[in-house]
């Protein structure tokens, strides 16, 4: 990857990576730090990265740096199950987007990352597996499980409304 290709990468993907990290961390400063760290690492290893794979590589770096950040700050949610109990205290959702964000917030980090990589960036199971270090079957199972949990939350919120 040349310098120009790196800078094109910044132009094209910086916002995407930032959205992905911000939605996961829900903290702007932390998200900025993670994104900057990811691009810093991409710059250092640019000679070993092919330009057409730069986006996938960038998301891989960002994902793992985000996990490292969460581990450092001890905010990793290790629970697999959906946090149903939080739903009781939720205020009524006023629109679908807000409800969906609330539902995403109740997923664990892995599931949320899978949903965001699929929905935001349109990666395939295989590509998501490469980014997150999971195999394709795990991605499929985790993603389907997360999707059903989101749907159930939407249904329940609709019922509340």
């Amino acid at each position, binding site marked *: 990857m040349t310098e120009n290709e790196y800078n094109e990468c*910044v132009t094209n993907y910086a916002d995407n990576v930032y959205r992905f990290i911000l939605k996961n961390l829900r903290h702007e400063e932390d998200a900025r730090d993670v994104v*900057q760290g990811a691009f810093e690492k991409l710059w250092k290893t640019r000679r070993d990265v092919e330009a057409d794979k730069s986006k996938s590589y960038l998301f891989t770096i960002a994902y793992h740096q985000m996990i490292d950040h969460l581990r450092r700050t001890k905010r990793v949610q290790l629970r697999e199950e959906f946090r149903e109990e939080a739903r009781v205290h939720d205020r009524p959702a006023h629109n679908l987007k807000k409800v969906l964000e609330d*539902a995403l917030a109740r997923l664990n980090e892995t599931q949320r990352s899978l949903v965001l990589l*699929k929905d935001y960036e349109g990666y395939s199971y295989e590509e998501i597996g490469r980014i997150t270090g999971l195999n394709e079957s795990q991605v499929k199972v985790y993603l389907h499980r997360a999707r059903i949990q989101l749907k159930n939350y939407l249904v329940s919120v609709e019922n509340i409304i």
Partner: protein
Amino acid sequence: MITRDNYEEFFLLYVDNELSAEDRVAVERFAAGDPGLEEELRSLLGCRLKPEGNLSFGDPGALMKREPVPEELLSYIDGELDESGRKAVEARVQEDPSLLRELGLLRQTVSIPDPLVMFPDKQVLYRRSARVRVFGLPPTFFRVAAAAVIIVAVGLLVLTRTNRTGKSTDPSLVISKAGNTQIPAAPVADRPSAGGSAAARPGATKAHTASPVAPSPIGSSSVTTSLAVVQGTRQAGSARNPDKDNKNDRRTVTPRTPVALYSKAAVRREVADNRGAANIDVPDPGLKDQPANGSLASMAMVTTGDQQAENRELSSFATQALLKEAYADTEEDENDTMEQNSRKKSKLRGILRKVSRVLEKTSGSDDPDSKHGVLIGNLQIALK
């Protein structure tokens, strides 16, 4: 082994079809041997039940189970189905309203990126590596530079070889008698002029006052005496072409004279030797038969008897010019020794000087006037 004690177990296994083929044959033989046992086996076989085909559950679909959300729908939402899979799901959804509702709910779970969420300061992410500016030079520059380097190298090589030849032939400054028989000159250390003082020799004078005129040891007019004339480097070209010189004048340098005799270096060494003794020997005119003892007086020029006076003047004038130049070079050498502190500088200076000499020699050979005169150093002497 079937006996009357264990035959019942074998009969039951036979009825349940749990025996091997060999055991079944054994059981049948055992029963055939006793009519009572054969009747008993037949009754047991009659107890076996047969399935009744007319009984059915009725609506098995009522018992079938369905996933709350079919996996195909999830894969459909994720876009992981191929074209045929997508069409199958769409067809199934159209047939089942419950699936259509499920699909609608799943579509609502798809997150859409917010374009308003942007990285706040993208400029900090851009990078620019340190650039190394390379000034392009035209290819002709390199060609000219390479040619110049080659010319200088060849010039230095030629000069070095010339100097070596001059050193090796330095003692061979000779006086050629008739027939050009060369007599090796005495070594410098053995020469009276080199080791002796001015007082020891009546003809010796101070170097700066000594006349460089070499009184030629002229014999009778019938004897052709060749007096070696040390020529400047410019004359080397003409020495290489003796035929041309002989055509112009008989008084030109003998063609057999070694090129080393015409080198400035030989003259410089000669002068340096003499200056080292603080004297320049003027050969005693009376010493006709002695060798030229390495001094400038040993310079020879082919002359005839009736041209001796004129040649003496020419020889005197040429020798003076040669000596003047040789002194200048020697002074330069002395200055060089004083500058030995800056060794690098003097080396460079020496190289430049040698190169300039080579070029001087080359340009001298092209001088059209050389046909009519002898070039010694920077002076041209007419030979008319």
